[in-house]
Structures are given as structure tokens and as C-alpha cells.
């Protein structure tokens, strides 16, 4: 192993870092991006915590977060406002990593958990709980019993599994993946609009807000599950990321390097789907974060594929900033998901136009 690492070091011209069996390459630019994103995240988070009916200055917020401040401020910050910001940051991080994984696996910037059916599957499950709880027979009763977040998680996982099964045909082709995911999404959206029609007005209002992805009224009970998932999955994803390097070389070369190509793909995709479904369970579908963030991160860090850690930080930053914009600039109860779509959809169009130009050049 040592010789391989030595060679890597020589070829890349970068210092290798080793801790026991773990080794990584020191990339100053990636580290700078991660640190800058984290600093910005803390600052924006503090601003976001400070805004509200009882305004608190940024300095005071930071003092409370490190353990000082008055009792009143401590209560407002820790119990009322911190969970919302934390939930947004964790959801954004999970979506960023999920997007980086799917885009890395597919070697295609257009693949994201959104097109894998995760978000729409979670949406149908959540609406089943909101609309049919108590009247929909055993299956819905079971879903309602486990609670809306778990139901959304199950729905997202099932939909993604369905897409993978239907798109798998002598290997996983990125384009077939996108199109099958799109077809499944359309069917699920039809089910969603049927549930919206049979709901009463209050249920429909609740459902539409959930479907747009909102951080309203998020407490510690929403923060802890997504935090646990991130703590468990993120290290595994980072440890497995070297497989992405092999996949980057193309299927044949990766096989030549001893990589079991399809197994690695399914494994990494599975991690991505778990992250995306957990994020959706916590905050509803916040679309386009998983698509946009890895693409921005890869441009900032200058690597060959979306970086996991930097995508996590950038995703957290985007969702927290989006929520701040939704609450302050747009006012009222505009869900953060509206902001991310308004930013993300034009970016997707831009990516498409650029690709089309490049293909035809």
C-alpha cells in the first residue's frame, strides 16, 4: 500500500496525510472552500437566529451559542430558533452529499436525487399520512403510526428502489436513469394531485406547504434524526469515495483496477438515497439543492468530480441562506423550497444550454 501512496504523492505533487489505515491527499483549495463555507454558515446562521419578533444582535447570538447570554436570550436561541437553523444546515448538507454522490456515480451533472424519484416518493407517503390517516386501511394506518417523517423516508426509499430496478438493464446508464426517474415522478405527482383533490381544505394547505419544503416549526425532534443519519453515513461515504475515483476512469478501466463496478455504484447510490430521503423526511422536498450545490462546489474546488465535504458545507450554506431570504426578503411564510427552486431551475437550464453548445461544437 505504501508504495501506491508514495506514487500518488509523487504524481499529484501533493502531500499525503496518513492516520493509521486511513490516508488522504491534502488539497489546500478544497480546505479553503470548506473553511470559508463553514465561517459563512455560522455567521448567516447567527443572523438567521437573530431575526424574528424578538430581535437579537449577531454578537449576542454567538455569545449564547458558546454558553453565555441572559436566560431569556438563551431560551429563545436554544429552544426556538437554533433547531430551525440547524435543521436547515443538516438537511442542506445531506442533500449536498447526496447530489455529489449521485453525480459522481453517474459521471453526469444532471443526475440528482430529485430525478431518482426520492422526493416525489416521499411526497406521496407524506400526503397519504396527512390526508388519509385514520381512514385509509392497514397500509396507510401503519404509515401513520410510524409518523410523517418515517413514512416520507420509506416512500422515498421505495420510489428510488423502483427507479433503480426499472432503469437497470445490463448496467446503469445515466440517461436511462434520468428518464425512468422522470416517468416515475410524473406518476407519483399524479397520485399527489389526486390526494390533494380528495383532501379537505386544511389538509390540502398543510400538504402543499409540506410539498414545497419548509423549515417552519422545526424542533429538536427533527434535528436529531437527520444528525444521526449524517453522522453515520457521511464517514462511510467519504471512506468509499475512492471508488468514485476508479469509476471516474470509465467502466472498463475501473474493472481493470479490480473494481466491482455495478456493486460500487449501487452501494454509493444507496447511501445517496438514504441521505436524500432523510433530508426530505426532515424538511419536505427542498428541490434542486442536490443538483446545484455539487456543481458549484466542483467549480470552487477545481477537482475532477463533486467533492463530498465541500458539497456538504455548501449545501448547508445554501439552505440556511435560502431560509433567511425566504423569511426576511420575501416575508410571511414562503417556504425555503420555493427559493431553492427559483435559484436552481434556471441554473439547470443554464447547464443544459452549455452542454448542448459543447456537444454541437
Amino acid at each position, binding site marked *: 500500500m505504501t508504495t501506491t501512496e508514495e506514487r500518488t504523492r509523487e504524481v499529484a505533487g501533493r502531500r499525503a496525510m496518513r492516520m493509521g489505515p486511513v490516508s488522504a491527499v491534502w488539497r489546500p483549495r478544497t480546505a479553503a472552500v470548506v473553511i470559508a463555507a463553514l465561517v459563512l454558515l455560522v455567521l448567516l446562521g447567527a443572523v438567521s437566529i437573530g431575526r424574528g419578533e424578538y430581535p437579537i444582535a449577531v454578537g449576542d447570538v454567538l455569545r449564547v451559542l458558546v454558553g453565555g447570554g441572559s436566560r431569556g436570550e438563551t431560551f429563545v436561541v436554544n429552544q426556538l430558533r437554533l433547531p430551525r437553523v440547524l435543521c436547515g444546515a443538516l438537511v442542506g448538507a445531506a442533500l449536498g452529499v447526496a447530489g455529489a454522490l449521485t453525480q459522481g456515480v453517474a459521471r453526469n451533472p444532471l443526475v440528482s436525487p430529485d430525478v431518482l424519484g426520492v422526493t416525489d416518493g416521499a411526497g406521496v407517503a407524506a400526503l397519504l399520512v396527512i390526508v388519509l390517516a385514520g381512514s385509509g386501511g392497514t397500509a396507510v394506518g401503519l404509515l401513520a403510526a410510524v409518523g410523517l417523517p418515517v413514512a416520507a423516508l420509506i416512500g422515498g426509499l421505495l420510489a428510488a428502489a423502483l427507479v433503480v430496478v426499472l432503469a437497470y438493464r445490463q448496467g446503469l446508464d445515466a440517461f436511462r436513469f434520468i428518464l425512468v426517474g*422522470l416517468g416515475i415522478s410524473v406518476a407519483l405527482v399524479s397520485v399527489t394531485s389526486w390526494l*390533494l383533490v380528495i383532501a379537505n381544505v386544511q389538509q390540502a394547505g398543510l400538504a402543499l406547504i409540506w410539498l414545497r419544503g419548509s423549515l417552519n416549526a422545526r424542533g429538536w425532534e427533527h434535528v436529531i434524526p437527520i444528525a444521526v443519519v449524517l453522522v453515520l453515513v457521511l464517514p462511510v461515504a467519504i471512506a468509499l469515495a475512492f471508488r468514485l475515483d476508479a469509476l471516474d476512469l470509465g467502466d472498463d478501466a475501473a474493472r481493470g483496477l479490480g473494481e466491482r463496478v455495478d456493486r460500487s455504484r449501487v452501494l454509493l447510490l444507496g447511501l445517496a438515497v438514504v441521505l436524500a430521503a432523510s433530508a426530505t423526511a426532515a424538511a419536505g422536498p427542498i428541490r434542486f439543492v442536490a443538483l446545484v450545490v455539487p456543481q458549484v462546489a466542483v467549480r470552487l474546488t477545481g477537482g475532477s468530480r463533486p467533492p463530498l465535504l465541500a458539497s456538504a458545507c455548501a449545501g448547508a450554506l445554501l439552505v440556511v441562506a435560502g431560509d433567511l431570504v425566504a423569511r426576511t426578503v420575501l416575508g410571511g411564510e414562503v*417556504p425555503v423550497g*420555493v427559493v431553492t427552486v427559483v435559484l436552481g431551475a434556471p441554473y439547470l437550464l443554464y447547464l*443544459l444550454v452549455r452542454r448542448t453548445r459543447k*456537444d*454541437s461544437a
Partner: protein
Amino acid sequence: MLALVLGLGALALVVVLSVAVGAAPTTPAEVWHALFSPTGSPTDIVVRELRLPRTLLGAVVGAALGVAGVLMQGHTRNPLADPGLLGISGGAAFCVVLSTTVLGVSDVYGYIWFAFAGAALAALLVFTLGAASRGGPTPVTLALAGLAVSELLLAITSGMVLGDGPSLDAYRFWAAGALDDRGADLTFQVLPFMVLGLVLAAANTRALDVLALGEDSARGLGQNITRARVVGLTAVTLLTGAAVAVSGPIGFVGLVAPHVVRSLVGPAHGRLVPLAALVGAVLVLAADVVGRVVVRPAELAVGILLGIVGAPFFIAMVRRRRMVRL
């Protein structure tokens, strides 16, 4: 010729079913009575005031969407083009919601112009994307562009209706895409636009046949590309905009109808356009009849039913063909 006979037979069948089947049970004798010697009995009113207009509406909406699908697949040279998937219905829907909730327009002659504007904008976007590359956009590019446009408009639409109870209530029924409670006058109000769209589509068929060879060859054969595109875009806008304005967004008709017809009569647009109109009408009416029966006594909106049934068709197409690498 056989295809035409088959299509007309299927249309006759679904029209009969659409007039005869519904929440209020009617015997064939009662339907006959209502159609040819009405006396104002309750079943006469059900058949003449509710089911006949609804059948007419379903037929024209289906025909419009089927033809719009042919035009879009022809102009983008793309087998997955559909007014719904490519965001054109979404554009029309967005502008209708904008006009009814924000501007307070309630008259169909008021908001149909918004539907046209929205459909035209979205169609323009898709066609521009198509023109940006020499070989035409891949199915994936187009599908994702449609996704981006629809998602964007949907987000803004829901942002507008979320804080407003009555709008939200109206929106969720309209967004499902349904034919009930529309009234005969509404159908006749949008009919002129659809007829104009169909005429333009018929005028566009020869140009489409030439364009199928590629833009360069078409230009070499003396085809005026810009004019052909403008005519096609106008027709798509009129057909989709009018259909969405009256029935809400209904997907997959524009995708399925052209493929069914193409498998029967081949790729010549002169035959594709009229037969796709026929098949589109049959599809929408059949879905509407099924939607009335499956969840009795409630109804399943035709847009929802076509979404659930159309998706497997779409996936089967994606799996079967090697088009994904186009």
C-alpha cells in the same frame, strides 16, 4: 385507411360510453330518449346538459393535445416531446393561475390569452434550446429542460396560492386536469382557437416531413425553416393553451397518441396529424369514462388517470428503445 376506420370506430365507441356511463345510472333506452326525443325528464337533463358537453370537450381537448404532440415531436425531432413533459402545459397553467389569483380574471376570454402567453413562452424556450445545438437536443436535455421549467413555475404558483385559502382550493381541483363542471359554452368559447391551431398544424405537415431530414437538407430542398418553425410554434401554442385554459393540464396524450399512430401508419405527417387528433380524443374520452367508474361515487380526474397510466408507457418506451443515447 384501415387505421382511419379503426380510429373512427374507437371514437364512436368511447363517445357512446361517455354519454351513457356516469354517476347517475341510465339505461340505453333513456339515453336514446334523451338524445332524440327529449321531454325534460331528469335523465334527459343529465345526458343533454352534462354528458354531451363533457364528451364534446373531452374530444376537442384530446384532439388538440394529440396534434400538439405530433408537432412537438416533429419540430424537436425528439420521440419524448409532449406538451406536458416539456413544460408547455405548465407555462399555460402558471399564467392562468397568475391571472385568476393575482389579477382577478374570471372570464375564460380573459385568461385564455394568459394561457397562450404562458404556452408560447415555454414553447419558445424549448425550441430555442433545440436550435442551440446542430443535431437537435437529446431527449434527456429536452426532458430536463421541461422539468426545470415546470418545477420553477410550479414553485412560484404554489408560492402565490399558499397564503390564500380560496385560491388554493380552486387551484388544486383545476391543477388535476378534469373535464367535469365545465359547461358547453366554455367549449364553444375555446373551439375557434383550437380549430385555428388544427388548420395551422395541417398547413405545417409538408414542412415537417422535409424537416425530418434535418435542417440543412430541408434548407437545401428550399424549405423556409423560420416560417415552418413559427407556424408550428403558433399551432402548438394555440392548441395547448386552449386545452389547458379549459381543462387544466392533462399530460401524456401528446406523447402517446403520435406513437400509437406512427406504429400504424408510419412517419408521414399528413397522415399523422389527423389520426393523432382522433387517437388523442379517444384517449381522453376513454380515460374520462374510466375515471368516472373506478372510484365510484367519486371521480378520478382525467389528468390524474392519464398521469398514472401514461408513466408506464413512457418508461417502457425508454427501456425498449436505444434512444437514450441519441
